[in-house]
């Protein structure tokens, strides 16, 4: 039996707690929200914290706490799905781009270059043209946007790994392509990938608010963290806490994910594992 994570570190425990809480709230958020997240209260616009509104209200007088709680689900779904898409797709491209026949690798990497230089805004607009706005389309678009970045990271790491003798040893044993990829390459490029993954999760949440500007995103008035941050930035002077709350939630979630990522990363490196 392998122990999966170095659970013992208190920081890791706390992070685990944060992430499970976030996931838990994603499930039950609408139930525990103290107010209707969409209920407008024109007499309580941009208010600071009070007993009625624990974290204050937004520009519509809606309860920020409720919106945060309800907004977790779309936020997390978009972040996780898009990161998964980007990670799987990007890693595949990257490995092919480094560890395949030269012609194939060349074409794959040049295709990645093309995707990389293709502005997100166009891709998003294209998606708006074709799909209804929503979590699925948004996740796919964001996932695609981050694929090439993953691909470059995976490719560079793979390039380094495949020059090492243990990959040669796999060849000498007659290992199939996929075995080399999964047993020799992947475990050894995992650390930059884990880092890239944690970076992508944060970036995806933030990008979501950027894309809602183009009409692709969680359609208002439905809440999501990215959108809350995006809107709140306009009210920095008037209602500074409006931007603080979602930012803090995001920061803590991302921090927890990062710490878990680090722990996972360090754990996967047997030379660093705490004995």
């Amino acid at each position, binding site marked *: 039996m392998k122990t999966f994570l170095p659970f013992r570190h208190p920081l890791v425990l706390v992070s685990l707690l944060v992430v499970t809480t976030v996931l838990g709230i994603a499930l039950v958020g609408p139930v525990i929200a103290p107010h209707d997240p969409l209920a407008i209260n024109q007499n309580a616009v941009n208010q600071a914290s009070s007993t009625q509104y624990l974290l204050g209200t937004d520009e519509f007088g809606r309860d920020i706490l409720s919106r945060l709680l309800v907004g977790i689900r779309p936020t997390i779904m978009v972040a996780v799905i898009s990161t998964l898409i980007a990670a799987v797709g990007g890693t595949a491209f990257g490995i092919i781009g480094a560890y395949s026949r030269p012609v194939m690798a060349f074409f794959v990497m*040049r295709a990645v270059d093309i995707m990389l230089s293709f502005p997100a805004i*166009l891709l998003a607009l294209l998606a708006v043209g074709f799909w209804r706005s929503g979590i699925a389309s948004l996740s796919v678009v964001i996932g695609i946007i981050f694929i090439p970045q993953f691909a470059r*990271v995976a490719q560079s790491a793979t390039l380094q790994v495949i020059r090492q003798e243990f990959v040669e040893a796999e060849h000498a044993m007659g290992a199939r392509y996929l075995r080399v990829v999964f047993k020799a390459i992947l475990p050894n490029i995992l650390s930059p990938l884990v880092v890239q993954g944690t970076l992508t999760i944060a970036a995806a949440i933030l990008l979501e608010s950027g894309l809602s500007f183009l009409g692709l995103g969680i359609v208002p008035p439905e809440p999501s963290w990215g959108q809350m941050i995006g809107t709140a930035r306009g009210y*920095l002077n008037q209602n500074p806490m409006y*931007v603080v709350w979602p930012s803090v939630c995001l920061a803590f979630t991302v921090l927890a994910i990062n710490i878990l990522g680090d722990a996972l990363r*360090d754990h996967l490196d047997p030379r660093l594992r705490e004995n």
Partner: protein
Amino acid sequence: MQTLSTFVIVVGARLATALVQLWVIATLVFSIMYIMPGDPVLLLLGPESHPSPEAVAAMRQQLGLDQPVLSQYLKWLGNAAVGDLGKSLDGYPVIEYVTASLPKTMELASAAILVAAIMGVPVGIAAALWRGRFLDGLLTSLSTLGISVPVYILGSLLILLVSLKLGWLPSSGYTDISRNAFLHFQKLTLPAVTLGLGLAASIARMTRSSMLEILSRDFVRSLRARGMRERRVIWLHVLRNAAIPIVTIVGLQLGNLMGGTVLVEALFNWPGLSTLLVTAVSNRNYPLVQGSIVTIAALFILINLCVDILYSLLDPRIRRKRA
């Protein structure tokens, strides 16, 4: 001689591919722009005007938008092939827009990357060296802030503090270096720092991870056994071995800075390529969109080429013998 010619062939081949890539991109953009909803003529004729169908038709004809898509495409391609990016729908040559914003974007991007690298790499190294200790936790938390606080908000806070409260730096704008060099750099500082801080965080994360990977290698032990200063071990040997993922992420960021800094450019009113692109897209200014994307893509391809070359310079094992 022979090396020189192989070099020329290799680079030549890559440049030729670059042209193909640009063509693919241009073609994709062209198709997307036509699929996308929105009509440039309506926007050009003014939001509040109620153009007659004749006027719209006349305008279309004048801009060549009445032609079949394919012939418009071929015409654009023909011109682009000889380096003519065509005219923006407002009549100005696209190249004029591009050459105006390109240097500004490059300047901001380089400054930001410089800030990011100068901050990110040492932070990453420190986190790796103190792995699992307090400093690591602190730096991890700080860089997470850098990742999860949107640049826009970071920038707003900086403006609020440095510019509005303290009055140290101007809040926004761009001044030509020839007109007032001091003011020029003053105005560059805040946007570069804002962008740089966000990027520094990712660089730090990647540096930490990559350093850890190398620090556990045996050769580090033998370097120490030779009595090498820890500083030299870390900064020269370990860092160089750990450089490839770092260079990758810096290259990616540099590329993103070419066309992905809309918010920061807007916040600091920095007239760069991203703003150009976004304005062009929102005005459905097809030639300008084409022109700016092709420029951005060219930069991207160039950066990637440099990064690829850098890989082989950094790690001799990646160097491939080409027949």
